[in-house]
């Protein structure tokens, strides 16, 4: 059973003359433990795809299956719970709560899920420590650098032990060095922590850390490449691609 499966997924905005097709009948399967980057020019539908997979938006056609469950048919309440339990989100502008410190921000998803505050804080500290933020727990976002804030966001995303991490331009607001750190952290989430990561990015250097890149254009997938050259499957796909010339 695939971790993420998308069937004939479409998202259309507006109607008639002002109709915009953001996603056009997209099909995609992502297996557990893959680090997948989604790339493409502005307006290609990559963020829309991520939002639909994360249940942050509803499709106008087709379905999204998370570990076999069709989320497009779920009620808001069920979807919210699934999102809180199975998914972690990382955004370009960090989206931390300014009045909460690092530990409080990180612990928030657990608190919202009814976990006891002491346990939530303890788990939050563990994740902050893993992301090299020891001693920063009591700092608020405005007392942290961009890279540090994003690492708090990643800690928050991981604290509820999700199956999938969805990242939307996680390095878009960071300098070169911090971007690399975040990419390495996301890589570790897959390699060491065995989660599935789906990341929208326009930065090739960051995409290079992934296992697979999906290229979107005008709402459709135009290419799907495995990055590990030693893979026999990849060689077969490359051959098919060359033959399609």
């Amino acid at each position, binding site marked *: 059973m695939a971790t993420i499966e998308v069937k004939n997924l479409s998202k259309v905005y507006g109607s008639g003359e002002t109709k915009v097709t953001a996603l056009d009948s997209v099909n995609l399967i992502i297996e557990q433990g893959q680090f997948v980057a989604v790339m493409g020019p502005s307006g290609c539908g990559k963020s829309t795809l991520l939002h639909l997979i994360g249940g942050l938006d509803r499709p106008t056609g087709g379905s999204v299956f998370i570990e076999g469950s069709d989320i497009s048919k779920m009620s808001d309440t069920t979807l919210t719970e699934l999102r809180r339990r199975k998914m972690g989100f990382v955004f370009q502008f960090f989206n931390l709560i300014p009045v909460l410190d690092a530990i409080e921000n990180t612990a928030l998803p657990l608190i919202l899920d009814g976990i006891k505050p002491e346990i939530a804080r303890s788990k939050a500290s563990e994740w902050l420590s893993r992301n090299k933020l020891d001693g920063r727990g009591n700092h608020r976002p405005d007392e942290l650098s961009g890279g540090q804030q994003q690492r708090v966001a990643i800690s928050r995303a991981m604290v509820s032990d999700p199956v999938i991490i969805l990242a939307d331009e996680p390095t878009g607001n960071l300098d070169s060095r911090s971007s690399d750190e975040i990419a*390495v952290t996301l890589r570790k989430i897959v390699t060491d922590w065995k989660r599935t990561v789906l990341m929208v990015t326009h930065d*090739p250097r960051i995409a290079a850390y992934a296992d697979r890149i999906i290229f979107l254009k005008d709402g459709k997938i135009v290419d799907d490449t495995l990055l590990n050259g030693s893979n026999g499957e990849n060689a077969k796909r490359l051959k098919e691609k060359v033959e399609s010339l």
Partner: protein
Amino acid sequence: MSVRHALLGLLAQKPRYGYELCAGFTALVGGKENWDVKPPQIYTTLARMVDSGLVTFNNANGQQSKGEYAITPSGHDELMNWFRMSNIEEPHQDPFYLKLMLSLELDEVDASRLIVIQRAALYQELHRITEQRQTLDPQNQLAQMLLMDKSAMHLEADLRWLDMIESRLDEVQRQPAPKPALRPRGRPPSQSA
């Protein structure tokens, strides 16, 4: 060209045996994976430098590997001139550009697919370099890491260019193909009365 100057550089430090120069060159470029120059090529280059008076060779038993090479004042001048030159690479000789231009002329090849395939290949290479860089030790191998960074940056530039040409491919196709400039041959046509 640079191989000869790298050898002069190694000899400017001290005289060396042939096999030392081979090993020294490989270490300097960061390993055979980066730049593989085989011993016969090194020995041929050294022999030419001896002929040109840039280097002297003192062989105990005739074998190039076991003889000692030393730099001459002339060789030292050559080395210093090389340091003073700047190095600009040749970006205009691009096999992919050739392929793309030809594909626009041939119906049986789809230029857009070419770009998609090239992009995938560039990403695979960028991934390989990224992984390789992760295995290096910043305390001891910083120089090699910076070389990997250079490769990564060049690949990023190639990818950016690919995006650019992809977005303007239609425009390029609409313009007339480059016509070879042929000079008229033979006698000019006679003017009939």
